């Protein structure tokens, strides 16, 4: 099903690409391969088409904003954003060349690299805030729960959106810091949208939720434990835009243009009102929620320490079946 759908998307994207190429150039040259020609970009006004696979989450607001404001076009890029169904689905699509770029959390990329994919982060995706208590995610317990902190999570069931993810690593690490046994926590993967019901029904004792679900669950009376990504490090790099090593080596100009356009988009998004407005481009959030949620931090510098820390945590809690996680190999 998913495959059939992605083929349909790819076909649509290909059709669109051809149409654009045919319209934009006086002597259309249809290239058989998907690799664009960077020399053609900019100078003659012909845009290099790229596809970026993302999840329609708050983290990617600058990308949507930049595309909307024409920042990418100004850098010679015709961006098509494809909404993927799940994070792990983006990596194979980038690896197979279906998308030129993808958006994924760093832990997943480290695991994908250990699994044999040759990838690199070309640009940061988003950072946490500086304050674990005021981050764009948090671990919540139902009102009246006896759980008051990380130590109480030992032996409990905690909902996360993906197994062996940064969410799981963060909670395990915090439980360990508080003196509990991190292995005693049972992690139950489920979509963020299912977590409020699971919490209310007592199926799980706690849940780690990201915005906008954090704001929604707080409205429903859930209590935050202030265990969040920022607990690992203030301004932790959570996710990144990535490409295959091969693509980055063969298309340095495209990658450079992509980074430059993203940098400008991050600057645009640093204005909070603009960033919140941009959420309306690709989500159906109520304006009131849009204004209430905590936004991630967007900045253009790539923080190596964050990647190293995520590798260290994933390694420590054995997410990779003992395989070595190579932070340096993921950095450009």
């Amino acid at each position, binding site marked *: 099903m998913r495959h059939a759908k992605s083929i349909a998307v790819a076909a649509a994207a290909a059709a669109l690409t051809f149409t654009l190429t045919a319209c934009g150039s006086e002597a259309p040259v249809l290239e058989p391969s998907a690799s664009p020609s960077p020399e053609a970009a900019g100078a003659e006004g012909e845009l290099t088409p790229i596809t970026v696979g993302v999840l329609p989450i708050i983290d990617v607001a600058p990308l949507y904003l930049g595309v909307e404001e024409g920042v990418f076009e100004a850098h010679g890029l015709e961006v098509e954003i494809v909404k993927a169904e799940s994070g*792990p689905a983006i990596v194979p699509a980038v690896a197979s060349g279906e998308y030129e770029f993808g958006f994924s959390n760093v832990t997943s990329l480290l695991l994908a690299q250990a699994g044999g994919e040759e990838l690199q982060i070309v640009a940061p995706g988003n950072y946490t805030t500086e304050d674990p208590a005021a981050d764009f995610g948090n671990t919540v317990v139902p009102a009246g729960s006896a759980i008051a902190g990380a130590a109480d999570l030992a032996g409990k069931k905690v909902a996360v959106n993906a197994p062996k993810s940064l969410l799981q690593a963060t909670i395990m690490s915090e439980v360990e810091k508080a003196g509990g046994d991190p292995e005693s926590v049972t992690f139950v993967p489920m979509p963020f949208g299912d977590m409020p019901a699971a919490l209310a029904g007592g*199926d799980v004792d706690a849940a780690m939720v990201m915005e906008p679900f954090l704001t929604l669950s707080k409205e429903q009376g859930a209590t935050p434990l202030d265990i969040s990504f920022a607990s690992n490090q203030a301004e932790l790099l959570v996710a990144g835009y990535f490409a295959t090593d091969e693509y980055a080596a063969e298309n340095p100009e495209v990658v450079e243009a992509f980074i430059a356009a993203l940098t400008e988009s991050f600057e645009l998004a640093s204005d909070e009102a603009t960033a919140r407005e941009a959420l309306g481009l690709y989500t159906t959030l109520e304006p009131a929620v849009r204004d209430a949620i905590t936004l991630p931090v967007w900045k253009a510098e790539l923080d190596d320490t964050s990647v190293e820390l995520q590798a260290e945590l994933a390694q420590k809690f054995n*997410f990779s079946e003992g395989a070595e996680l190579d932070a340096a190999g993921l950095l450009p």
Partner: protein
Amino acid sequence: MSAPSTPAPARVLAATGGGLWRIVLALLLPAVLVTVWWFASADSTDPQVPPLATVLDKFPTVWFAGDDLGSSLFVETVGQSVSRVLIGYAIAMVIGIVLGVLIGTFRPLRDFCEPVLEFFRAIPPPILTPILMLFMGIDHALKISLIVVGALWPILLNTIEGVRGIDPVLKDTARAYGLGPVRRLFSLTLPGASPQIYTGGRQALSIALIMMVIGEMFAAFDGIGSAIAQFQATFSTASMWSAVLILGCIGSVLALIFGAVERVGLTWYRGYLRSQRGGA
């Protein structure tokens, strides 16, 4: 036939020889497939399609890692999953046969239930997952009831058909001989319907396995479905393939057991068919 005139040792030889030949024949295709897989994937560098050797290497390193077999991933996940399948399947069998006999026996009840049965049968069981989760939570109750909901229909519908299809002359005869309802149930209805019930049971077995995996992939924290979901999420493709292998083996073993039970349970039926053919 000619069997009685053949000397006993030759008969034994023919029997075991035939048995051996059948075993060889049964194992031939799997052996060929594994060989083809082995050589076709041997030089693969695509992380999505690892060499079979890498996949098999996951058995000692992932499934049976550690010194204690009892706490190995294999025993934990497979034990969890298989016990769920068996419990769910047994519940589906009991409900299916009891309801099936009732509905098949009483015409008015059948007319009363049929439209509703058609309605529920048309609902693909996997889509009930989120709904059932609201009532059942996310643990055993949910995962077992998903198996029951999926496996019930082939058993129920086949039992109804089996009971309905019993020769009316036999029913009248039983009644004429003054057999009580309990006696009629155990010496006519159930045996008469059993070929159909076994057919339904066989179909239900594969559905039960499918529902087990689906249930465990949802809110996945234990069982083999969860293992597959986790391997996928962590890009451990070789481990994922190994889990699929294990799943296939579970299916084969369960089907073998089912076949053996069916052979014993339906010995009379095959004899009956032979006599029918011989008598014609």
